[in-house]
């Protein structure tokens, strides 16, 4: 089922809620992305350092056990091998925009997320060059 160029469309989803993680993975798959799932920041780091296909994009939740999105992002940015992977925040935080600026995220989506907005944001984040304006939630 995975298209031959799957690794070009690999997206790492970091989300602690299994229902959201599940549906996100499903819609990405429906839209020909290759979702890789991690339930928190630490798990995401393990995935990234395991040596599998490098994701083109990381969908990052903020509030998670073990390692929060903010902690993950700090480690990611400090690691040159993975620092360049763009990050799209998906959060319930009402101040998502500010957090996104602080973390140097490629964009942000506020839960609950609409599918159209999600796909647009992913495309925007993947399209070179990086978009100068953030997509509206």
């Amino acid at each position, binding site marked *: 089922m995975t298209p031959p160029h799957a690794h070009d469309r690999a997206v790492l989803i970091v989300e602690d*809620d299994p*229902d*959201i993680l*599940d*549906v*996100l993975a*499903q*819609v990405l798959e*429906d839209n020909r992305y290759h979702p890789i799932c991690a339930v928190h920041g630490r798990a995401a780091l393990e995935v990234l350092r395991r040596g599998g296909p490098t994701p083109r994009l990381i969908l990052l939740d903020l509030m998670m056990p073990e390692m929060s999105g903010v902690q993950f992002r700090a480690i990611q940015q400090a690691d040159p091998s993975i620092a360049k992977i763009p990050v799209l925040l998906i959060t*319930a935080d*009402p*101040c998502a*925009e*500010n957090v996104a600026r602080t973390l140097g995220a490629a964009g942000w989506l506020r*839960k*609950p*997320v*609409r*599918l*159209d907005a*999600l796909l647009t944001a992913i495309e925007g984040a993947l399209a070179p060059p990086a978009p100068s304006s953030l997509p509206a*939630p």
Partner: protein
Amino acid sequence: VTHVIAAHFDVFDGADYGPRLRFEYERRAVSLGHAFPWGMHGPSSTQCAAMPGLRLCVAVFGAPRDAGSLAMAVTFDDDGLADLAGASAAMLQSLSARWRARLQAGHLGGRDPAQCQELVARLDLAADVLARGAKGATPAARPASVRPAEASQTPTEERFRLLVDSVQDYAIFMLDAGGHVASWNVGAERLKGYRADEILGRHFSAFYSADDIARGHPDMELRVAMRDGRFAEEGWRIRKDGSRFWASVVITAMRDAAGGVTGFAKVTRDLTERRRAEDAVRLREEQLATTLQSIGDAVIATNESGHVTMMNPVAEALTGWTRANALGRPLEEVFEIVNEDTRARAQNPVARVLREGVVLGLANHTALIARDGTARPIADSAAPIRAATGEITGVVLVFRDQTADRAAERVLRENEQRLATTLHSIGDAVIATDATGRVALMNPVAEALTGWSQGEALGRRLADVFDIVNEETRAPAKSPVDRVLREGTVVGLANHTALIARGGTARPIADSAAPIRALDGSVSGVVLVFRDQSQERAAETERLRLAHAQEAVRMRDEFLSIAAHELRTPITALQLQLDSLAQTARAAGTSADSPLARKAEKAQQQSVRLTTLVDTLLDLSRITAGRFEIAREELDLASLVAGAVENLRAEAANMGCTIRLEAPVPVRGFWDAMRLEQITTNLLSNALKFGRGHPIDVRVGVAGNRARLTVDDGGIGIPPHDLDRIFGRFERGASPNHYGGLGLGLYLTRAYVEAHGGTIRADNKPGQGATFEVDLPLSPPSTVPTGGPAP
């Protein structure tokens, strides 16, 4: 005929025979033409020498320990005094008998029996001499014939010699014509330190200092005695051991019948003690004078007639009289006193002291009028001055300026008054007890709280008046006063203490009890301060109730916040799932109108509504918790409103409304886009809800330095009494049965507007429907960077 008479007795037992005898002598002597100007102690040798026919022949006998136990025998060439000598002899005999009886009975008053024995012997001897003289016999040789003891002496002469020999207090000895010592008695040995065998035959200059000898003083004395018959002086003499003594010396020339000097009788008395006593008296007098001068009190002394004899500088200052002017004046003149209040002349104490011999204190409120008229309050006392004999010889008046004391008293009284006033007006109840815990004082508040008046409570045990119980159990509470009295520490009442008033009313009180300490530090009572806590208790209850309510509100808001947050997660999953479903349906079907696509779309709409509701709840909880924030960015209100209008156009059309937008120019400012969209959407939704079927007019413009958004509807309008409250929480301008919703739309709208520093108001249009007007500052209230986080 030469008579020997006794002169003076001053004996142990206190009886004074002297004055009586003296009186007799004087009477007889004067009747015989002799003057007897001597004092109580008999004629001095000088006085004797001045009286023709009078010869001193015997000096002293008596116990040396008792000063003044002196008798003197005098020879007198006058028959008229013979019977007086007899009387004197009788007196000495009775005295001798009395002492003999006391010796037998052993009633000697602590005196040495041997000395008493000796006294008796001497009294007998003297009485015998006198008795012989009284009988006309020759009792003793005339002084001229007094010679050293010889075998040929008559019995009387022998006795007289014995008498002289035994005299201890006078050195009585003879000098030959050349000044060599020819006889020596016990007194001489005692006084000068030489035994008879050491001194007999030596020149009498041995008794003089080298200086006296060098200036020929001893020889001068003998020359004077030869010339005048007698030489007398007081001066320093030298004892055998070289020590000095102050001596009274009388040297009498003894002549033979032809008038030639055969020798000298020398009588010497040691006056060192007297001189020392005189010096001491002088010193005491000087000290007394200095004391009087420097004493802080005023002192005035008077004589027995009440005339001023002395006053010290303080008395001068207070009376205004100088000592020189005051001396000799009647005291009343110098010491004028009046009643301090009435100014009536006060009784002068001196007269009464002189009359009654009592010590008097001045009455209170006495003022002294100084010579210049100044009145000063004084305190004083007057006491009699008594001579050794007990007779009153004057009055001494001691007084003191009381002006300062009076001022201090006034201050004290004022302080007391102030304290009393303070106690009376203090808001707390105060009860003071004495050292036994009985009520000594209570103020009006204490009277009100206990139900006891001070008059009734005074002297009662505190527990009667201050009846306290545990507020909850109603068990009697321990009185703090007992503990204060026992331990001397400040004691606070236990919590939950209630005071039972006399009428049975119980009031919660707070109190403390503290010891009242006397100046010496001992606990002289307890002061109890307490306060009705009823109001505080009620206020506390109210405060707790309010705190509970606030806590309930806070918990509700917190719950709302958590609930909204928790709801977002499943909604997120749900909405994505529905979106995915709609996508799948669109992909599967050929038409957007396929039943599956339509159903998916309906589900999507409901999930959006659900999201909106959850957002509303979340905003609400943030607003009520004061944690609501906006994110400003530069944007154009006109285009934003246009977008919102477009989003609702379809819905409006469904409800029979047309939305007319009038937004001719861009209106740029720094606002939160999402919130402005919510404001616009809320107002439009409101207009649609209440103005179904009527057109809606939306205008965006600028009014002064503010952006203005106006939404007019043609609906039912707002009842005038609701205009003030439609922006409140959970408020509706209409019945919820007809118009659903949480009733939060306008409340949140106002909150969003106000978060921007703007205002919103609602009004009814003149014709029909309502109008809402939102004003927003074009620039933020403070300088906020473009797109930066809201404060």
